[in-house]
């Protein structure tokens, strides 16, 4: 049987090219063409234009590129609001992805077991992913409201915050009737991170579940027969096998968080006080679109590119290496 399959495989390679589409190179080029030409025209051209904008001084008022200059970059770089936004990009992405990847691991492991009501649980966990970010974030805007926050209501009723009108009531967490989640920089930063974790958790969990299902049950059984504790099993067996897919989950999380403008734009509008929780995307939107300074907007966003490219290349390489081993 083996001999005959070998012969057949060999003859497959020698099938004469009956149609021009059987020419592999030609077919490859034809199949790649629609996507390729579309990307060159609608991503390539605007990308080059955006770079040119950043090296010129175009505004909505004078949209002609007159000459190339580095002045825009100097102006953008020396702006303290830009520096803050750049720092925030790293801070928000690092914190939210650290928390997301840990939580998603725990949740994916818990969901890997069979239990009653699993369908409903999966549905409830997928909800944040199924809501447009802008609307989900508005939901959180109310959750974190300075007066009506339902979280504050719970805190008041368990004694963490002061009850209005109750004599001698003292808040354990804060001696006030409300937390003012979006009212000061530290809490506002925590709120932005929280919303990012909330919206990325479903996708990261699903990706890690995908990784867990690819680990053969035989390996788990063998490990459990050996009587290894769950921590060692996770650390020495599951984690190394899961590494490529963990990196992919992390990579998507980083890309989505690092480039996001919606959460900050809807939740804090960059405040409080103004421009302390701004990120590069929201700052570019304010400068480039609302302020009409196209070149400064473009120059601001360009600072995302080296980070995104570097992180992606590094992570994809590591993911591939651990797969080969």
């Amino acid at each position, binding site marked *: 049987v083996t001999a005959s399959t070998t012969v057949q495989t060999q003859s497959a390679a020698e099938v004469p090219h009956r149609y021009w589409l059987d020419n592999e190179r030609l077919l490859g080029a034809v199949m790649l063409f629609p996507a390729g030409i579309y990307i060159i025209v609608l991503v390539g051209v605007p990308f080059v234009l955006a770079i040119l904008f950043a090296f010129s001084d175009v505004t909505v008022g004078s949209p002609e590129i007159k000459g190339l200059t580095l002045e825009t970059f100097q102006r953008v770089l020396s702006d303290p609001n830009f520096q803050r936004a750049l720092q925030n990009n790293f801070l928000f992405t690092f914190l939210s992805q650290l928390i997301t990847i840990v939580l998603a691991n725990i949740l994916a492991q818990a969901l890997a077991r069979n239990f009653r009501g699993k369908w409903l649980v999966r549905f*409830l966990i997928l909800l944040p*992913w199924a809501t447009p970010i802008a609307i989900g974030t508005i939901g959180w805007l109310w959750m974190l409201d300075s007066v009506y926050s339902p979280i504050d209501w719970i805190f008041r009723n368990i004694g963490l915050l002061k009850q209005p009108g109750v004599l001698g009531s003292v808040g354990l967490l804060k001696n006030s009737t409300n937390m003012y989640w979006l009212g000061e920089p530290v809490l506002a930063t925590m709120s932005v991170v929280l919303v990012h974790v909330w919206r990325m958790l479903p996708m990261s969990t699903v990706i890690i579940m995908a990784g867990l299902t690819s680990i053969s049950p035989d390996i788990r059984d063998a490990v459990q027969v050996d009587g290894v504790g769950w921590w060692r099993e996770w650390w020495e067996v599951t984690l190394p096998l899961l590494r490529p897919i963990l990196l992919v989950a992390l990579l998507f999380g980083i890309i989505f968080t690092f*480039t996001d403008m919606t959460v900050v734009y809807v939740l804090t509008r960059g405040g409080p006080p103004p421009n302390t929780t701004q990120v590069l995307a929201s700052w570019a939107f304010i400068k480039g679109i609302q302020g009409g300074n196209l070149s400064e907007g473009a120059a601001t966003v360009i600072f995302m590119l080296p980070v995104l490219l570097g992180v992606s290349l590094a992570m994809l390489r590591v993911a591939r290496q651990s797969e080969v081993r």
Partner: protein
Amino acid sequence: MNAREIGKSGLNYGIITLFVIFTAFPFYWMLIATFKTSNDLYKPANNPFIFNQPPILDNIKLLFNQTNYASFVANTLIVGVAVVLITVLMAVPAAYSLARLAGPWGEKLGIAMFMVYLIPPTLLFIPMSRVVTVLGLRDSIGSQIVIYPTFTVPFCTWLLMGFMKSIPPDVEEQAMVDGYSRLGAIVRVTLPLALPGILTIVVFAFTLTMHEFIYALAFVTASEHKVISTGVTTELIRGDVFFWQAIMAAGIIVAVPVAIVYNLFLDRFIAGFTLGAVKG
């Protein structure tokens, strides 16, 4: 079941309950708020999680009678379906080509595809706004249908390329020995095997489209052409006035059916993703 296993499954339920509270808590509140009167909602002392006054339907009526919400939903669906179709039509052949036919270039072009996805919309939409004007698509959902594949096609091609690589080439070669042309073998043998991968890119393309906010905000200002993400955030927030209950209703009405559909396909999505992302 021995005591240890009961303890383990108890712990499991505990962990899952905490997570469900975290993810679904805002939705529970949104659901309640949808049917609340304003008197009930705007009283900080009221328990926010129950009806302190009898529930009403006025907020949903406001959403459908006094805003273009029905058009927002329809536009979101039209844009979503059109973008998914365009994405599948472009990404499937491109992914196959990169996985099988492009030789050593395939790998590099595949990575390049992913890099294209990394260019943030916040950078592209400034020049893109000129493209939209030139094409005469300003203020129409056509702008979104033309532009959204700029992020769905690179992403989906990359993901599907990984999936295609995991399908053994032998099955195709066997079909060619049996007398099919290369194209015939692709259509009859490879595509059916690639279905979980295609399903994965359909889910991703639709999700990315539904979440998109920046292009939609910048290119469409006419109310009847808006999609949910921009329509709700611009028409139900007028200055400082938020129509909170109607906004929450708008969110719930979208989230529940989409989450149900995702859940139905989750297992096949997981199968598609495992192969796609790791081999890619």
